[in-house]
């Protein structure tokens, strides 16, 4: 089984794990807003320290967090380079044609990189500390107001949870079919791109077939249990607790702080 770093639950018991998923989603949105409101390094520093505290309280090992960043490393480096080279500014260190490295450019790209890393880390912290099921429950609950305009919130949540549930199953299946074809001499590792894509046909065809078969079977099984999408009760009810209150206060303080820093300290460049 291969590991997918982005969006994998890390099963330990911690303060952050126990937070209400609805709260975590709202907090994540608030946090992202705060990152974008922060217009200088002081604001980002406040965001980063809140995030570091959250990581510490979540008991997710630091290596896991680093791995999430590694997934977007290319994007980060690319953004940094483009901005260093093209941002322009007054204090020029080096220039060649339209390329120009300046103090402002370096500062600005550092600012962007920190923003990007914070974004990735905070969203992966959510998925590390919240099971997919809790996440869909949370989203369903948050979307409830849409029921007033007859939006099928429940169906959407079901589709989401089925999709999430099927990811590991299909990944296992892929691994199994890959092994079976490897045992028949299939080679996925060598050759040019075209050859490698072609080598995947013997995996993709059975995989698609089995996905359709599973969908069929699941539909039949739901029919057999008289599923009609009507009102259903929950095994795990979501409840706000004192933890969520603590978190909410912290979140409010964070946004206020960042806004104040923006107003009083101004922009970075």
């Amino acid at each position: 089984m291969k590991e997918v770093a982005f969006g994998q639950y890390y099963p330990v018991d911690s303060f952050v794990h126990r937070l209400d998923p609805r709260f975590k989603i709202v907090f994540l949105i608030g946090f992202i807003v705060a990152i974008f409101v922060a217009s200088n390094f002081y604001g980002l520093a406040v965001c980063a320290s809140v995030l570091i505290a959250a990581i510490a309280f979540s008991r997710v090992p630091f290596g896991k967090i680093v791995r999430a960043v590694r997934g977007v490393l290319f994007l980060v480096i690319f953004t940094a380079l483009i901005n260093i080279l093209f941002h322009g500014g007054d204090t020029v260190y080096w220039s060649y044609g339209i390329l120009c490295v300046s103090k402002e450019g370096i500062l600005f790209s550092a600012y962007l990189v920190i923003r990007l890393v914070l974004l990735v880390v905070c969203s992966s912290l959510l998925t590390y500390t919240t099971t997919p099921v809790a996440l869909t429950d949370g989203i369903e609950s948050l979307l409830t107001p849409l029921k007033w305009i007859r939006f099928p919130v429940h169906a959407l949540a079901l589709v989401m949870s089925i999709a999430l549930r099927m990811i590991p199953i299909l990944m296992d299946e892929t691994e199994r079919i890959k092994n079976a074809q490897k045992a028949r001499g299939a080679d996925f590792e060598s050759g040019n791109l075209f050859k490698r894509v072609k080598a995947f046909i013997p995996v993709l065809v059975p995989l698609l077939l089995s996905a359709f078969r599973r969908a069929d079977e699941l539909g039949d099984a739901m029919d057999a249990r008289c599923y009609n999408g009507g009102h259903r009760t929950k095994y795990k009810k979501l409840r706000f607790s004192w933890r969520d209150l603590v978190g909410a206060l912290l979140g409010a303080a964070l946004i206020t702080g960042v806004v104040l820093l923006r107003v009083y300290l101004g922009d970075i460049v």
Partner: protein
Amino acid sequence: MRIVAEDLTYIYNPASPFAVKALNGVSLTVEEGEFFGIIGHTGSGKSTFVQHLNGLIRLPSSLKKRKRPRGWKNIPPAVLKVGDFDLADPKTDFRALRKSVGMVFQYPEYQLFAETVKEDVAFGLKNFTEKGKAKPTDEEIAAAVKDALHVVGLDEGIAEQSPFDLSGGQRRRVAIAGVIVTRPEVLVLDEPAAGLDPLGKREIMELLHRIHGDWCKTVVIVSHDMDEIAENCTRVAVFSEGRVVRCAPPAELFKDAASLLALGLDIPLTAKLTLALEKRGISIDCDYTMKDFVRRVLARKGGGQ
């Protein structure tokens, strides 16, 4: 080819909260020409073990240092040899190994993909062309496919059909044909008869006997079906919690039914009947195949054929 395993250990997801020790020091020898059975509970390490045999799961020592997973440091060096292939050695030609060790997975019919049966069966044949040697001609391929379909008991006529138009049992045989078409010396099957009706099961076992010997010298099967094991195997290894707890011919193994039952495993019908008769004071000493059991019961009754 002789299979020798010593001290084989394998951990899934090492150095993570999901770490599972699937094999915990497995030592086992399968002689050439055997029809070897592997039994054990779900999660006892059977499938993990057989996937080692053709290098789908590699010993850490056969991987480059950089590719070795973390969390392997305290695992003692293991030995795994299949014929002349040393699976602990990174220089081993794993493609050549896979040509010599055929592997039929659980529900192999779900790995079929080609438009016609012929193409699907020929897949392995085309893949295993050795470097520097001429590719097999179309006639050679057609002949090999025909032979393979014949030995698994399928009519030549279906070669041009789509595998998806066939019945479940036929598809499974096509999948087996697709593995044996390269004439591997060792054939490993994971639950070859799972999910089939009794007739389909018997047919699969019959075809395995046809393959065993001329086509593939050694056959290793993993099975939950004790009747299947008792009827067919020369020797049986019992896996439990990643270890081999017993390894004996079925006639010996099922004598000690109590220890198998204690492991939560089933025993063949013949062993159950023997136990029931024993309770009534009749002792039957058979090798636990149905034929032998019936013969001995009749002989005891006096007369009977």
